[in-house]
């Protein structure tokens, strides 16, 4: 995860004469290995269950590995009758991309305004933005639902996408503002002397310089939309319009005995998250830390 640049100690470096040190070292390793096994076991179980035969799942005690590795569970689950996994993936990807664009553009514009321009009322608005993080979503949900019903937005992707273009999330604004504040003023002043407008400075200086934070925001947004359950549950009603999360819930509701197929589909939903984690772990961890400490 975070690579330590300092010296790390391995088994060879331990002075075995000092029993305290050696004991502690071994004890830590045992704890770490046992803990990791416990933490990874559920995921491992999900994977092996997804490759088992239907009958194999219903045995007790359960077998650790499938007798034959039924890779066909994956296509079978994906193409299960009355399920629309192709469509659901498409919907999820469409919503994800639209939301990501909205979040990145909108939150970075606002963050620039809050970080770099002095104007009356700025701090009050920023406090309002921060305060909105605390507000439980259900307070605004019902009137929004009523309003969306009036303008015919229910059972469309609009409620999940359009609001994002208005600010892109209080937390993202906060994160980007922190970063923008640390970009040297000289860069900006030089650009102003060259006659660049603020919009160009934002686009040509601030955005390229903040790629790591933008990446963190993008990754969080991707995770958020991919995992979102409550929003789609409330706003989408036609099964063809569902997202993957809702689709898997529907599968669970209708065919709860098809355990291997259900696990296969759930596992498919986990894969992109793990993949994204390994590509972007540096940015993600930094973002998590920023969110947890600098607040």
């Amino acid at each position, binding site marked *: 995860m975070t690579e330590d640049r300092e010296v790390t100690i391995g088994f060879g470096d331990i002075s075995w004469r000092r029993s305290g040190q050696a004991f502690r070292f071994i004890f830590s390793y045992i704890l770490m290995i046992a803990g990791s096994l416990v933490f990874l076991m559920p995921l491992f179980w999900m994977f092996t269950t997804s490759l088992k035969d239907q009958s194999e799942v219903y045995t007790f005690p359960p077998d650790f590995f499938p007798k034959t590795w039924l890779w066909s569970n994956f296509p079978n689950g994906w193409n299960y009758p009355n399920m629309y996994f192709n469509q659901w993936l498409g919907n999820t990807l469409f919503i994800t991309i639209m939301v990501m664009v909205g979040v990145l553009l909108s939150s970075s514009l606002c963050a620039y305004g809050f970080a770099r321009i002095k104007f009356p009322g700025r701090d009050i608005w920023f406090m309002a933005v921060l305060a909105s993080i605390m*507000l*439980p979503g*259900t307070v605004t*949900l019902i009137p929004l639902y009523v309003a969306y019903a009036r303008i015919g937005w229910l059972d469309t992707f609009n409620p999940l996408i359009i609001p994002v273009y208005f600010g892109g999330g209080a937390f993202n604004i906060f994160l980007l503002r922190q970063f923008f504040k640390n970009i040297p003023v000289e860069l900006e002043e030089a650009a102003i002397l060259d006659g660049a407008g603020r919009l160009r400075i934002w686009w040509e200086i601030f955005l390229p310089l903040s790629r790591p934070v933008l990446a963190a925001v993008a990754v969080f947004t991707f995770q958020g939309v991919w995992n979102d359950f409550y929003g789609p549950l409330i706003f989408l009603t036609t099964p063809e319009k569902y997202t993957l999360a809702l689709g898997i819930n529907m599968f669970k509701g209708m065919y709860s005995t098809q*355990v291997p197929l259900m696990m296969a589909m759930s596992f498919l939903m986990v894969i992109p998250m793990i993949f994204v984690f390994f590509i972007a772990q540096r940015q993600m961890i930094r973002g998590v830390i920023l969110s947890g400490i600098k607040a």
Partner: protein
Amino acid sequence: MTSIAGTASSQNRVKSFVSALTATKHRRDTIEGYLFILPVVLGLLIFTLGPMVASLYFSFTKFDILSSPIWIGLGNYITMFTQDQYFWLSCKVTLIYAFTSVPLGIIGGFMLALLLNQKVKGIAFFRTCFYIPTVVPAIASAVLWSWLMNPDYGLINAALAILHIPPYSFLGQPETALPSLVLMSLWGIGGGMVIYLAGLQGIPESLYEAAKIDGANEWDLFWHITIPMMTPTVFFNLVMGLIGAFQVFIQAFVMTSGGPLHATYFYNLMLYERAFGFLQMGMASSMAWFLCVFILVMTLLVFRSSTFWVFYETGEENQ
């Protein structure tokens, strides 16, 4: 003389020119500033403030969406507090969950961070192992844990069978359903762990060295340096953790449907059923406002308490 007067007047001219310039710059900044933050200003007005006002109004009405809202004053609140048997039940369930899962999560995450804060080989790998569960989508982990806790074929019962403990229906019994969800929440302590790790690494080494010179042992170092220095991080995670725990929904909705015997009937699940099951939008709005006020009061209380246990390095800048 004349030359001095000349410079003075030209200075004045420069000054007024500069002030005129700053005035235009000021006005321009104001316009540009608001243009930049316009999205979020509009967003707050349209998607937060407006709906908040509407929601407050709805909370004093009987409203089923199909017909227009009927004003009933405090009716919803009175029903909620005095007649609806499930209201206090759902509050209880949610509070028990929040006040067990959050402290356990903090303690677990903190201990994990201490364990993984050593400079030993392969540490990055172990950190990754503990963090991975936090990226699993909630729906996938709900499906997975339902199966793990299955009374007849689940892995957890298989593990207990080795210890000769008879199979148990964790989610199917009212006594254990809620504790099982708490246990499941602990699978995600890797998220807190990363934050505590960063906090631990941010403690200056010099503090420890100075204390060691003064003859402190490792236990002293832990109690008098590590713990105090970590309190701000713990505090923040406590606040955010509680706010999150009060709003739990998906586990109850997908895994237990609030049962058995309403043992996992979380507040947000009840609110969801009232709003979108029974179309009692007025009642649901009252519930949403009660939650909002409750979270606010809780947060203020935790903030108040923080002066007693949260250590800030620079006492004067204590905000």
